[in-house]
């Protein structure tokens, strides 16, 4: 192609042979993929397959043992602080402060990502309306039900309009309706141009993604849109696709 | 019964898996007993002394030499006027200033009376009184020397025996205290934090709704820590006897028995604390910080209980360490038998029962 500049504005995440070793154990084994701007990219796999480890490398939380990667154009090995400025993150534990109020959590993370107080206030008001959280605004996050917390955590993670948001198993422990509502929020975010990188072990959620990769034993064994994968594996559902791949797996629940 | 043993075994595995924590729990007491055993003493040694004398006469020189020669004092400075006294203290050059009257020896010879003034830095009042006490003794012994040059035909000779601790080692007084403190703090902390941890993780509830009686659940929880504490006790004993040279003058068996009882009480205390704390941090704050100061100050480990005002003596009597330390001193240092510690054993046994009783009740309540 003609423009071989490092920073390709359409490829928000690029991974080239990313590897992470813990001693002799290869948690992530030479994975390569690219994520386009505005995509919802699903990162699937069983527990212990290496999803979380891979994601942590992309977020700058973990130094790769081998390979290269860029997020928002910044190198994840050498420019981690720049990476962090451009991303949002939501972990399995939701990571909001239980002893701070809803608006206080928003204010804190907004401020951390460099937003100014007037802007924070304005956007908080808007967010409360959108989420229908007006009554919850002054409540301590610890007192909120799980589903509320998840939605709030997601909203906080994209509050500063990052280029890409990383979600690590964001919908654990809630009923399917709440999960569905959560995914509405994700769609809303992508419509604003935010790229979504989400790991999950719920196979039905795979259907919501634009493209999906399936990790088995640290390697990517499949990477395509859900529709194409179903065709490829002659499967009725993503669950079926996964079962076929998982049968090859040697690692169970690390 | 078999169930109980399998639970206990599970608890052991659980603990042994966390090697770092075990290392910390085993090493801490070792370092502590060595440090404290050697360092904690109120002996007066090599105290810096300044002397103020305007005349360099025989009497004052003799006294100065005696002071310097004693293990208690080290004469570091000679000053010549009263203004310098302020400086000496302000700059912490000496803790005691000995002021000889002008023409000391002359006055002594001709009038038979002369003055020495002892000025002590009393920021530490206890040390200060020791300084003046020992200095006075030395000056008096000089006086005796002079007197024995005169005729003193009638002699009452005191034969002195220092019982139990002939060398007056500080360690003899403090090691039992340090032992008591370390055991209770570590046991209470270990147990309370571990149990609260399980509460936090939710696994405690699972155990409590199991068909096993709550008392067995609790016993299985405590057992590994009991063993750990016994290891600590043994280590501290070995170090006390062989490194600190504090011998066990009395029955080793009695010592072991009362120590086991005490460890049990300490663990029960940890248990009680765990029922009161909802987070690990709270458990640690109560058992670590909360227990530390009362044990240090009121258990008799440092400050003698008999000196305290009565209300504090009463408070002191609910601190298990107080009874244990008293028992250890009786057996280890004084070499007395089991019959001498009946009171202590009784109190400790009572405490154990009460603590376990209250904890059991609290556990039951939570289930309902």
């Amino acid at each position, binding site marked *: 192609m003609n423009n071989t500049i490092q920073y390709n504005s359409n490829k928000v995440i690029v991974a080239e042979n990313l590897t992470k070793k813990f001693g002799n154990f290869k948690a992530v084994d030479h994975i390569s993929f690219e994520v386009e701007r505005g995509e919802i990219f699903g990162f699937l796999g069983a527990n212990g397959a290496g999803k979380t480890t891979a994601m942590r490398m992309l977020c700058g939380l973990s130094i790769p043992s081998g390979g290269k990667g860029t997020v928002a154009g910044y190198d994840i090995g050498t420019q981690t602080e720049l990476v962090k400025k451009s991303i949002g993150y939501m972990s399995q534990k939701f990571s909001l402060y239980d002893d701070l109020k809803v608006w206080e959590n928003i204010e804190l993370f907004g401020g*951390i990502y460099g937003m100014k107080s007037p802007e924070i206030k304005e956007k908080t008001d808007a967010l409360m309306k959108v989420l229908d959280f007006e009554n919850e605004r002054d409540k301590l996050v610890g007192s909120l039900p799980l589903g509320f917390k998840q939605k709030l955590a997601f909203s906080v993670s994209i509050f500063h309009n990052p280029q890409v948001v990383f979600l690590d198993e964001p919908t654990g422990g809630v009923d399917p309706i709440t999960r569905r509502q959560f995914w509405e929020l994700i769609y809303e975010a992508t419509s604003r141009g935010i790229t979504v990188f989400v790991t999950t072990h719920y196979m039905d959620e795979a259907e919501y993604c634009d493209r999906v990769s399936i990790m088995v034993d640290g390697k990517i064994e499949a990477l395509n849109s859900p529709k194409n994968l179903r065709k490829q594996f002659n499967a009725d559902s993503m669950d079926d696709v996964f079962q076929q791949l998982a049968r090859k797996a040697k690692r169970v629940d690390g | 019964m078999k169930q109980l043993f399998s639970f206990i075994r599970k608890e052991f595995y659980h603990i042994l898996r966390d090697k770092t924590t075990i290392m910390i729990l085993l090493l*801490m007491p070792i370092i502590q007993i060595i440090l404290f055993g050697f360092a904690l003493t109120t002996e007066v040694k090599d105290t810096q002394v300044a002397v103020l004398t305007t005349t360099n006469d025989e009497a004052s020189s003799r006294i100065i030499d005696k002071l310097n020669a004693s293990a208690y004092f080290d004469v570091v400075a000679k000053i010549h006027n009263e203004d310098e006294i302020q400086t000496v203290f302000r700059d912490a050059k000496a803790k005691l200033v000995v002021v000889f009257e002008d023409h000391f020896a002359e006055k002594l010879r001709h009038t038979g009376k*002369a003055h020495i003034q002892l000025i002590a830095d009393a*920021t*530490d009042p206890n040390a200060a009184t020791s300084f003046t006490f020992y200095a006075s003794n030395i000056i008096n012994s000089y006086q005796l020397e002079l007197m024995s040059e005169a005729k003193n035909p009638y002699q009452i000779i005191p034969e002195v025996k220092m019982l139990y601790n002939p060398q007056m080692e500080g360690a003899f007084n403090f090691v039992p205290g340090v032992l008591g403190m370390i055991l209770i703090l570590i046991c209470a902390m270990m147990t309370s934090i*571990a149990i609260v941890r399980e509460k936090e993780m939710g696994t405690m509830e699972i155990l409590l709704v199991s068909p096993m009686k709550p008392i067995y659940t609790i016993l299985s929880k405590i057992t590994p820590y009991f063993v750990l504490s016994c290891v600590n006790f043994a280590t501290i004993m070995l170090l006390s006897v062989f490194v600190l040279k504090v011998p066990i003058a009395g029955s080793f068996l009695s010592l072991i028995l009362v120590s086991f009882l005490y460890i049990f009480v300490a663990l029960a205390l940890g248990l009680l604390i765990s029922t009161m704390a909802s987070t690990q941090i709270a458990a640690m704050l109560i058992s670590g910080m909360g227990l530390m100061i009362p044990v240090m100050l009121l258990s008799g480990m440092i400050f003698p209980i008999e*000196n305290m005002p009565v209300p504090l003596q009463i408070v002191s009597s609910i601190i298990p360490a107080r009874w244990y330390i008293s028992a250890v001193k009786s057996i280890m240092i004084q070499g007395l038998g089991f019959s001498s510690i009946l009171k202590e054993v009784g109190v400790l046994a009572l405490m154990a029962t009460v603590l376990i009783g209250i904890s059991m009740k609290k556990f039951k309540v939570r289930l309902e």
Partner: protein
Amino acid sequence: MIKFLLRKEFKQIIRNPFLPRMIFIFPLMVLLVFPWAASYEIKNLNLSVIDNDHSPYSRRLTEKIVSSNYFRLTNVSANYKQALKSIEKKQSDVILEIPPHFEKDLVNKQSAKVMVSANAVNGMKGGMSMTYLVSIVTDFNSEITDELLGGAASSSDSKPTIQIDSQYKFNPHLNYRVFMVPALIVLILTQLCGFLPAISIVFEKELGTMEQINVSPVPKTTFILAKLIPFWIIGFLVITIGSAIAWAVYGLVPAGYYSTIYLFAGIYILTVSGLGLVVSNYAQTLQQAMFVIFFFMLVFIMLSGLYTPIDSMPEWAKWVASFNPLKHFMVVMRSVYLKGSNPLQLSKELFALIGFAIFFNVWAVLSYRKKN
């Protein structure tokens, strides 16, 4: 950015069910109760007497001892075995045994013995009982000698007397509380400001909120500062409360300036917080962090001169103590309160504390890992 983090920290502290109460109640309790317990003063020495002579001299000797203010007669026994039991039962601290024919021996053979046995488990107490008792016996000796020689020996030139006069500087009434209260304030400060910032960080690690911070652009130094500053301020608050209690309850006012105290306190708090942070950076679990911090705290406290004087320690222990920030601050507090020392006179402690503060905090920042 730091203002947002500071806001968070303060709110969390205030909303914590424990902390605010602890900050106010803990100093109160410690300072109200413990100064009364902390004293080595040896008040009553309990005496057991075995009088096997039953002579005027033996009675006089006993009388003399009892009428001195040092001893209380708590036991009279017929033999040594009985007397020893009274020591075992903690009824007496020292035994005086007067053998049979005491008076006869003294008058006729010109020498007689008495046996003194002191309970030396507490070496100081034993030493004191022994010395006091012996000095009274010696006095008695002179009295008797005088009488027997018919007053001939009271010519001045054979009885030189050195009059000793003791004065106590900085604490003329030998008030032990004056000594303990500033020291206890240091203790409180150490426990609160040493433990808490570190616990706060490890706690966030366990909760998972730490990860959220690590993945954000918050620089290490900013985060650590945001943890330190609130406790620094709390530390000042605690010192103020402590000083207020010292003044209100004990009438204790420093001979020096409060500003000196605050200056040193400010540095000291940074030192202990820094150490706590270093521990928390290396600890894998909350449990470990707490045990190690507790260990340091205990060692620091015992080797600080709070309970036993540094001067009494063996050389190597004194050397170890010089690495103990608590020891230096203890010296400062006591010097400022009792001697009115100023920072110049305490320059050694000042440099030591500054050195420690820099060392620990730099180490804390360097060892804090946002990624692994």
